[in-house]
């Protein structure tokens, strides 16, 4: 028997070091965590916080305009507010008019479905937020 073979036999006699009994479970727990981490998460284009900010901003703007118009009903208005009075709101409403025109051409069934789907998406969004809390 050669020297190498002898050493191989000697080495094989050394008892193998064993990992802990729950080694596989520990690894698989970490693997499952990894899987959860990498699974796709649905993210809306505009977050709930974003929508809140937009709504708040619009509300403030609306209230502000209403208050200012009440304070200065006509005639003597500070020059700073002139651009506000000269605003032609019909220009802003043009896209809405186009949308309304487009929607009126659609069938009522399709519109009902569209509204239903939109509502479902909204409910889903809100419920997901509540569940997370």
């Amino acid at each position: 028997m050669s020297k190498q073979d002898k050493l191989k036999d000697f080495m094989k006699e050394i008892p193998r070091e064993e990992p802990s009994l729950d080694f596989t479970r520990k690894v698989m727990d970490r693997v499952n965590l990894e899987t959860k981490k990498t699974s796709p998460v649905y993210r809306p284009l505009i977050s709930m916080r974003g929508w809140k900010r937009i709504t708040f901003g619009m509300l403030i703007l609306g209230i502000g305009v209403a208050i200012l118009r009440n304070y200065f009903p006509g005639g003597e208005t500070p020059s700073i507010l002139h651009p506000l009075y000269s605003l032609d709101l019909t220009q802003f409403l043009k896209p809405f008019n186009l949308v309304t025109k487009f929607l009126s051409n659609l069938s009522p069934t399709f519109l009902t479905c569209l509204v239903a789907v939109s509502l479902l998406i909204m409910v889903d969004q809100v419920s997901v937020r509540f569940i997370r809390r």
Partner: protein
Amino acid sequence: MDQKSDTYYIAKVLEGDSGSFAPLVERYKHLAFSLSMKIIGRREDAEECAQDAFIKAYRSLENFKGSAAFKTWFFRIVYTTAISKVRGKKTNEVSLEEYKLSDSEMLDTENAVGQLSSEERSVQLHKAMERLDPDEKVILNLYYFEDLSVEEIASIVGLSASNVKIKLFRSRKKLYGQLYNLLKCEDALLW
């Protein structure tokens, strides 16, 4: 007993069945832990290192080309993970003066080791192995314990086959040197 091949489980994992990774863990946990122990030395750290290696393998499973055996590919991950853990850390091994054995002394040592009881031989070999550098321990372990070829070891440790052969020769000689020291010490105590 489950006898399905590694590639079968790898394909299942890549299809999204993460549970199919468990048989691979079960199959290679002993080797991963044993290799980590040889390099790191501390049981807790070695276990953590082996776990990290499995997670790294899981993450990069899609990069496994299948040109090499999964075992070799995975051993390379275990080796690099363990080496990176010990890098920079000072080993607490006792530095012993390297004694160059003559051929006759090597033969005497081998005979002396052969005459020991199996239990005593394991103890002495274990002690001698502990005194080697991590690289040397790994190469000896992979060659003599895991029965890997020189080429497979080369791909794991990132050396050329000829370098592995040289390291293997030197490590073996160093192991005998340590065994010689240990047995000589015991003899001196007996006297």
